[in-house]
């Protein structure tokens, strides 16, 4: 598909987050127009879905028209995943024989969703996540990483596999990557997991620039162990702490972000502006990483916006104003195997608009996750704390 050359060109750019706004948005529009046309033409289900909302590729003429593209819900993927591959085949937009892998996400509700991937979409996805890590995470090829997680053989969670693959693609050498990454959670002979804090400290001591990666609760766990030993790492200017995955499964132990950040600074020697959270967009297997200004940047090959309802429920083409609550919608034109035009029901806001610059100097929109849309009976769902979905990726073979 010719339009994907635009993505390749963007990847070759030394920093696609700094290309001029107009140029970036023109490229974004062209990519999405073409991706929409591809999905419309090659996916009968999606074509009928668009027909229901009376939208066709010719209608997407200008940048503002992007919000007219019909969005599929995350719940729909969950539902069809529950009924086996027979239904999933109906949402595939490439010849079925091209599907090489199904990714499964656990999501926040515990119900799994499956997503079909062809090889090319997979490669583009990995390159995209690696470029985000390189440009927003500001890492170097010689940097080393401490994962506060189990190793790849002992976990299927996407946040671990995804981050590792991003690092591997960025470094460009499998062997080197293996040497440059340390996994802190080990498994003993009885199958019990434990934090190998001594091993972690040795790895850090031996290294110049080491970054950390893991879910917030793992930072808290290891920090508490270090505090108990009366140990803390010296402050390093370049050291970064990357976080993703939220407090899933450990909600009871959740502490405010500010408190966690103070703990990370004190115990791991990471400057506050180097503590970077990532927002996982589980349905498109991407993450939006924070810059030093704590803003989560959307790359020019993706469209993320927040939407408002019109009076007619079902129409969410109206954009929410900057900083105003809205339903998060994301479109990923680099996935060709299924229509990656998704809404999850999560509420968030754009903190920088498509035509704006972040204080960090990067261009384009930044997103803030605010909450799950509420249960009107005021149940636990009203809670305002951030609960990102954990991406549980299972590399199931195509059957």
């Amino acid at each position, binding site marked *: 598909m010719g339009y994907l050359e635009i993505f390749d060109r963007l990847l070759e750019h030394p920093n696609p987050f700094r290309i001029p706004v107009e140029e970036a948005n023109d490229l974004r529009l062209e990519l999405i127009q073409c991706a929409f046309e591809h999905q419309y033409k090659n996916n009968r*289900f999606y074509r*009928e*879905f668009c027909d*229901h909302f009376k939208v066709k590729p010719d209608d997407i003429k200008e940048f503002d028209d992007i919000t007219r593209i019909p*969005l*599929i*819900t*995350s*719940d*729909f993927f969950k*539902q*069809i995943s*529950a*009924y086996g591959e027979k*239904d999933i085949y*109906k949402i595939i937009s490439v010849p079925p024989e091209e599907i090489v892998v199904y990714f499964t996400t656990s999501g926040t*509700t515990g119900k799994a969703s499956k997503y079909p991937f062809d090889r090319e979409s997979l490669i583009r996805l990995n390159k995209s996540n690696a470029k985000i890590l390189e440009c927003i995470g500001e890492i170097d090829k010689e940097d080393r990483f401490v994962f506060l997680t189990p190793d790849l053989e002992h976990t299927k969670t996407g946040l671990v596999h995804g981050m590792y693959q991003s690092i591997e693609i960025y470094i460009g050498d499998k062997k080197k990557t293996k040497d440059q990454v340390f996994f802190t959670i080990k498994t003993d002979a009885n199958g019990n997991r434990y934090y190998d804090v001594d091993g972690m400290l040795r790895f850090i001591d031996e290294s110049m620039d080491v970054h950390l990666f893991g879910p917030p609760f793992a930072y808290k766990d290891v920090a508490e162990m270090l505090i108990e030993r009366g140990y803390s790492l010296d402050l390093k200017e370049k050291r970064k702490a990357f976080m993703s995955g939220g407090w899933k499964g450990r909600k009871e132990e959740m502490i405010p972000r500010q408190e966690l950040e103070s703990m990370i600074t004190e115990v791991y020697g990471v400057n506050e502006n180097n503590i970077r959270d990532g927002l996982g967009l589980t349905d498109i297997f991407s993450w939006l990483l924070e810059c030093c200004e704590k803003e989560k940047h959307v790359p020019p090959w993706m469209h993320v916006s927040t939407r*408002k*309802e019109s009076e007619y*429920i*079902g129409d*969410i083409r109206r954009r929410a104003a900057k900083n105003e*609550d*809205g*339903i998060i919608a994301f479109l990923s034109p680099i996935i060709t195997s299924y229509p990656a035009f998704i*809404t*999850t*029901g999560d*509420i968030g806001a754009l903190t920088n608009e498509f035509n704006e610059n972040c204080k960090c100097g990067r261009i384009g929109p930044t997103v803030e996750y605010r909450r799950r*849309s*509420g*249960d*009107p*009976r*005021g*149940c*636990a769902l*009203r*809670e305002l704390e951030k609960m990102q979905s954990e991406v549980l990726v299972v590399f199931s073979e195509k059957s």
Partner: protein
Amino acid sequence: MKVKGYFLPCMEVESEKKIFRNKFGEVEVEVPHTTEYLVKSAIERMENTREYLLKLPVRKIAESVGRASKNLSDKKYSLRKKLEKTLPVTTNLSPEMVSLSIDIIADTFTEDNMIEMLYSELGDPEYLDKFKPSKAGKSKAFGKNIIINVFGSGGVPGIQVLGIVNGLLIKSAVFSKPDSSEPILPVVYCEAISDVDPKLAENLVVLPWEGGNPKYSDVENYVFGKRGENDAVIVYGSKQTINTIRRMVNRDSTFIGYPPRTSIIVIGKGKLNRNNIEDLTYRVAMDVCMYDQKACFSPQIIYTEEGGEISPEEFSEALAQKINKLNKKYPVGELTDDAKAKVNERKRTYIAQTILGKARVYESEGGVIIFDRNKTTERPITYRTVQIIPIESLDEFFELIKPFKDDLQTIGLEVGEKEFEYYVNSLSSLESVSRITRPGSMYRFPLSIHHDGKRNYEGLIRWIDLI
């Protein structure tokens, strides 16, 4: 309209204005500056005023409270007018629905109903006044000194009144913390009692604050943490709120939590016939539309058996038409952006399923009816969004409800006589189920029913036997 957002008889309090606004209007609520000193003074004062309450015969209390409720049934009564003006703004329910809700409160909390409830709970209300013959010789019942009610959000008018009335009837002083989004109904109900018997109302306090905000940790530590053996804390709210407050409550005092529940309807094929459809859809529509489906007893999913004269799909269409019709009498209220987002997400999910031939979505001004061939267990989202699931047999129904069997509360059962006993017996084995009734009666029930399967006064009454 300007209203007070607290009830604090005989006490001065500093306050500020808070504006509530929606399509039904604007309300300026005077919100108190709730401090540890204020709650301490209020509770200490209640400890003194309770003497009057203890001396009042229980029938006198019921009579006064019943009169307060009856006054609210009068559309010319100033406090009724105040509720009709303000509740649509704070609850997001339509004025018509609010008016019906007030009528239900007035009809439910009558003197007769309260006395009947006390008979059902205690055997004889007068055990609260004096030692009376009992199977244990002579016995007397003592209510808690102070009951602290915490009302979670939800916008369902009624539960606040239940909490206040239940406490007063057992001669407990009642301190209520309303949800900060709806502070008005408990305040106005206390004002209605004060209109009838001001001294009785001195045993009532309503004070809002933002629960869980560290700014109010001193307030919460005092209200929940300093309660004694003869006090009780009752929380009507989310599981998270219940657990959070439970941890704060002094171990010596009584703690009761009422979490949110889910309710459903089951319709057997024998009842899906042309003679019954008009009446059945009306009754189901009323249960769905009442309180915009936000109550624990509102049906969220309807299981309909296949093989009847009317198919589950035809039933779905008929129900959608009925809800649309009912919407003219009791219009749906205002949907918040969050609520719209949830309804939207559900609707788009099922529009996609319609394309796959797995569902049908019937939209109307009054709600969204989803006929789901996939029989998916989805989390209820309320706001008159109903999922209709066809079932092949009664046994299949029990398989389908497994994922949320621990949260079920009310079951609307419309099956033939033969199946009725089987269903009742099977449903009774689910621990969370506390009420089985006919569709149309899910939203209206006698005051004497058990609350979530428990006696209303379980843990709140202490008995002394004279032998």
